[in-house]
């Protein structure tokens, strides 16, 4: 597989972005990579924008992804994908959870939520993989597992055996939620393969 790479995770506080980035880091480390991950989570539980930078390779110095160098973007909320465009280049692949979460200015009627976001992304030549993570997780029985659906889609873009991801999930997810999370992961993986 590629010897190094940059994966950017973005979304809204409370969406499980940190767990998703942890699972991905765990898998990359299991393949013998060095890795660093940077998070800003001072406001994570209060609905603000949240991001995590994950870099891997033989030896990683900086924990921060430079603008224009993210190979993969996992956007846990569709509008948040647009906010991180400066990190992407023409060959970046974008996995988008199609869920919308209203920011305060939209929820209070001061402005409207943008339309045609997927077109905005594909229009720039980006490879876009839309995943209805919320619906996948709801069908499996727990809407909070939507983050793992995105990791499922991500697993199709990294040349790493599925088993490594399953092992990481088993290690990280509490046993009472494990079955649902494995189900959500597989459904996310299927959605990733189909698009």
């Amino acid at each position, binding site marked *: 597989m590629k010897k190094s790479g940059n994966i950017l995770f973005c979304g809204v506080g409370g969406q499980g972005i940190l767990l998703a980035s942890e699972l991905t880091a765990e898998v990359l480390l299991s393949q013998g990579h060095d890795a660093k991950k940077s998070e800003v989570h*001072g406001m994570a539980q209060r609905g603000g924008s949240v991001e995590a930078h994950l870099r891997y390779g033989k030896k990683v110095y900086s924990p921060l992804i430079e603008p224009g160098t993210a190979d993969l973007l996992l956007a846990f909320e569709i509008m948040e994908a647009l906010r991180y465009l*400066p990190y992407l280049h023409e060959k970046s692949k974008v996995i988008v959870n199609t869920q919308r979460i209203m920011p305060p200015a939209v929820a209070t*009627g001061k402005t409207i939520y943008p339309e045609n976001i997927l077109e905005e992304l594909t229009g720039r030549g980006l490879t876009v993989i839309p995943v209805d993570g919320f619906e996948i997780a709801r069908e499996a029985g727990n809407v909070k597992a939507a983050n793992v659906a995105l990791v499922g889609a991500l697993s199709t873009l990294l040349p790493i055996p599925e088993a490594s991801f399953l092992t990481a999930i088993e290690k990280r997810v509490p046993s009472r939620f494990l079955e649902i999370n494995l189900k959500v992961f597989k459904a996310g993986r299927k959605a990733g393969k189909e698009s």
Partner: protein
Amino acid sequence: MAPKKPASEKLWLSGNEALALGAHEASVKVASGYPGTPSTEILENLSTYSNVYTEWAPNEKVGLEVAIGASFAGVRALATMKHVGLNVAADPLFTASYTGVRGGLVIVVADDPTMHSSQNEQDSRNYALAAKLPMLEPSDPAEAKEYLKLAYRLSEQFDTPVLLKSCTRVAHVKGVVSAGKIEKSKVKPGIERMPAKLVMLPANARARRLAVAERQGKLSTFAETFAENQLEWGDKKIGFVTAGTSYLYVKEAFPKATVLKLGMVYPLPVNLIRELAAGVDEVVVVEELDPFLETQIKAMGIPCRGKELIPAIGELNSAIVRRSVTGNAGPSGFEPVVVVPRPPNMCAGCPHRGLFYNLNRLKVFVSGDIGCYTLGFLPPLSAMDACVCMGASIGMAHGMAKALGDEGKGKIVAVLGDSTFIHSGITGLINTVYNKDYSTVIILDNRITAMTGHQPNPASGSTLMGEPANSINFEELCRAIGVKHVRTVNPQDLKETYDALKEEIERDEPSVVITRYPCVLIPSEKKRVKYPLHTVIENCTGCQSCLRIGCPAIHWHPLTPAEAQKRGYKDKQKGYAQIDEITCVGCGLCLPLCKFKAISKGDK
């Protein structure tokens, strides 16, 4: 959970987890501090290890004093805080520099350049210079752990407190860390009387001042051969001098360059820097925030460039460093597009929301403070007019009252949380009573230090180590201070709170209103079965009254005249509000705001 793994096993840890492991491996016995992003998780993680006592102190000054006492008793001690916390702890810091230590004493201070979660971005390295203390600066989690262990050895070897500077991109970065050996201190715990060293009155302090000067000389000599001050020879055109995370950005941007990485940023290795300067065409200093290294290197008479190239404001990264030094912008991404901002918001059901809604209606000047409730500044609540530092709200309100006299009467309140009141608001309240004014102090008592992630405090009834503890009775405390008018209200009851506030604000004497309701994120509240409210959509007239509390569970849906008609509304109705039942916790704050019966109570 604390990683209890055999030595040399590779672990994946955040900087704060690594610092906790480092404290464990250094056999730290007592650790105290006050929560503050990005430093909080150090003590939280350390509290999961055995053989170490950990606590949350009421503020950073007390935390450092506890650590100093433990050091005097002959054990290794740790104090942790964020950059602004070191301002609070500066008083004991400067004199502990004179007393020196018995058991190793390390102060971990975590800076927050770019102010991800802070009110300023001061550079803590200046404290090392001002207090004449050595400071180590790790660049990542693996170094954070090793440097903390080194710091304890240096502390005992040189009889000095040691500062270890972390920052957001060390504290909240995860990386690969190797578990190491447990190291024991050679100092014997116990009571040892040595007043000439520990009693800092003028005669003793003058003698200790000389000891500090001698120590600085020894540390400067030590710095020349300190293994963590590493000179990596490469391309001879530019020789970089750098430290901490800036080193990582330099390595990323200039992999082949000559780099002097300083593990100790104070005092500096003069000869090593001269050796570098002699071997390269030009010296460039790359450091975040202040020209701390640059100023000292220039004072050595060594020509260099630093802040004329590198920004002095905000965090650096490899792209900024490359661009600043070469003018080459490097890879570029897509142009940014304008996206609706997504600021943090008070949670659905947050007990602070109702209070700020009422303060907005009362049109008073709100002297604010540091906590989740600072978000009361944001629209639509828009009810905070000043916020400077922990505990300042009360003193500032008093100053305004003294400046304005009768003109300010009935127009000024101070607002602060339970933890902030305990941290440094109490002294302000004593002043308000003693020097007499008319301001109303509102203590938002949610029983937890919420903003930093729900640490227990002296009002919570439990400790960091999970022991039950006394819970401060604010009413009795305020009365003991001399406040005659103390009352407690439920902030979720809008009318009760409004009436109480109105009465107290108009009063001629100091008063305290305690708004008591638990934070919705504490475990007992999270577990409580929720009954979300329902929207009776056909009753909504689109008046938007419910939107004025800015609850994230209430969403506005705009309508065109045709859409309005189709839904059976009047043509001119511009939209309707709907409760998102996944987010709503059923607090009921919005119920009395709707005059059209469009909100109904949830099923029980």
